[in-house]
């Protein structure tokens, strides 16, 4: 699977629950440039682990870095409702812009605001929850990790439904 990790939180969480390397072995992972520089460290078992994501994953070729143009970012912003334009971080806007361009990418995020933006960009069908990603990859969490509610399929689909409703009632369909 060509997997697009939308934001730094996904990467940090996957590192935290110790499945990132397995996913990198199994799938072709892609991230946006702005996101790469936001991953500075993660916590595991209460300990802060610094990570040089660029050195460890990008320069080593384990993860593919992609960049959007300012025009593509502007296009993403224009498709979002005006308040939502300001409620998503610039790194995530770049990330969404690359996602729109690369139709072969499957997206993973558990950020509620980002999930709700997906219907406006017509990319909702290419998105999966972290729980589904782990399941389809055959990865199970170590017994000491309880799946965070935000990573669940339920959280993902309820936010996606909310986004679909917002999209329908925003008049963007007209």
């Amino acid at each position: 699977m060509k997997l697009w990790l939308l934001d730094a939180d996904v990467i940090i969480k996957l590192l935290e629950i110790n499945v990132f390397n397995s996913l990198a072995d199994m799938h072709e992972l892609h991230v946006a440039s702005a996101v790469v520089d936001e991953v500075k460290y993660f916590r595991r078992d209460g300990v802060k682990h610094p990570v040089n994501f660029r050195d460890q994953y990008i320069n080593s070729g384990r993860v593919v870095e992609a960049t959007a143009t300012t025009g593509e970012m502007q296009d993403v912003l224009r498709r979002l409702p005006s308040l939502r334009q300001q409620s998503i971080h610039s790194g995530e806007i770049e990330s969404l812009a690359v996602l729109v361009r690369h139709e072969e990418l499957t997206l993973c995020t558990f950020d509620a605001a980002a999930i709700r933006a997906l219907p406006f960009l017509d990319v909702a069908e290419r998105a999966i929850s972290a729980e589904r990603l782990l399941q389809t990859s055959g990865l199970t969490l170590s017994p000491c990790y309880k799946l965070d509610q935000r990573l669940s399929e339920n959280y993902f689909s309820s936010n996606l439904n909310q986004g679909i409703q917002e999209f329908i009632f925003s008049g963007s369909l007209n």
Partner: protein
Amino acid sequence: MSRMELAERLREAREAAGLSIRDAAARLGFTNYQTLSSIEKGEREVKASELALFGKTYFCSLNKLLIGDETQPSAVHFLWRQAPTERKTEVEAFIKHRFEEYHLLEKLLGLTQDEASVIISVSPADVRTKFKVDALATKVSNLLNLGSRPAMSLQKVMEQMLRTKLLFVELSDFGSAASTVHPEFGAAIVINSEEAPWRINFTLAHELFHIITWSTFNPSELEQDEALFREIERKADRFASSLLLPETAVREELIARSTGQKLSFSDIVDVAREFGVSTQALLYRMANMQLIEWLKADELAKNDELMMIDRRVRREAGCEVPSSQRFIQLAVKCLRKGLISRGKFSELLAIDRADIDEVLEFWGLSEVEGESIEIMAS
């Protein structure tokens, strides 16, 4: 959007932030200012990764740079207690941007300014004499239910009841505090976060006077007329003193602690702490309550022994870093409701992405909304 359009917006944003092309280039990490000059002339493409840095350096949002302002924003007039002597435009652009972000959270949650409680209207006659200023302070204290120890609740009341936007910013040499009443984002106060808590309380009360008299005295005129400004500042200080140190409560506390009409230096420091003000503020309040002579207050305010006790007691009490509770609460609420992304949340609160969960736990706040319950109409 053409490259020229973006180039023009970047130049306008830099100028609005009060930055020269050389200063801006240095902050953006360009090795020479010609690179930025080429960008502003539309000769060089801007990378997506650079855009975020432009936004941060020029204190403006990504959508303002990429889409532009649909409506012409109203100018913000800040009334400074002690205006920055240099880089004023830059400091004000930064503060304005922070207030705009604060207001964005309100808009996302559907909180409009109309819903904020309206405070009393004040005429110039209402503050003509110091006794009238005292009466105004009592009236405001009663209206806001500040009780006998107003400093304990003033910040919360101003934030939650009056919806005054408070921001604590490291202003260092750039000034101590400023306030504004803006047609779009309402009453807002910025306070130097490096000030001691008891000074912050006094500053808050002082700025509250400016907020409630914003329409009474034209801030532009105050800036032009030094004598008038000094007079209004004295009234604001008097208001703050009367508000934070209610006469009856202060008398009761002093009597309770005195022995044979005498108070020790430690007692004075303790009473000041009890009311959340500096020892000097209490001494001058005691003078205007005619409990001591003004000369005595002046003398005590400079007394080495008293100040040494004050420093020791305050040091032992420790200092919490001040923060705007309402801003944090609104940001968390927006995060919970999926109205802002976690990236935006970490940007607003200036915390690292990996620290979000830990910070929420520290504040005792949950990111998850949980189930809703229905409440009965009374």
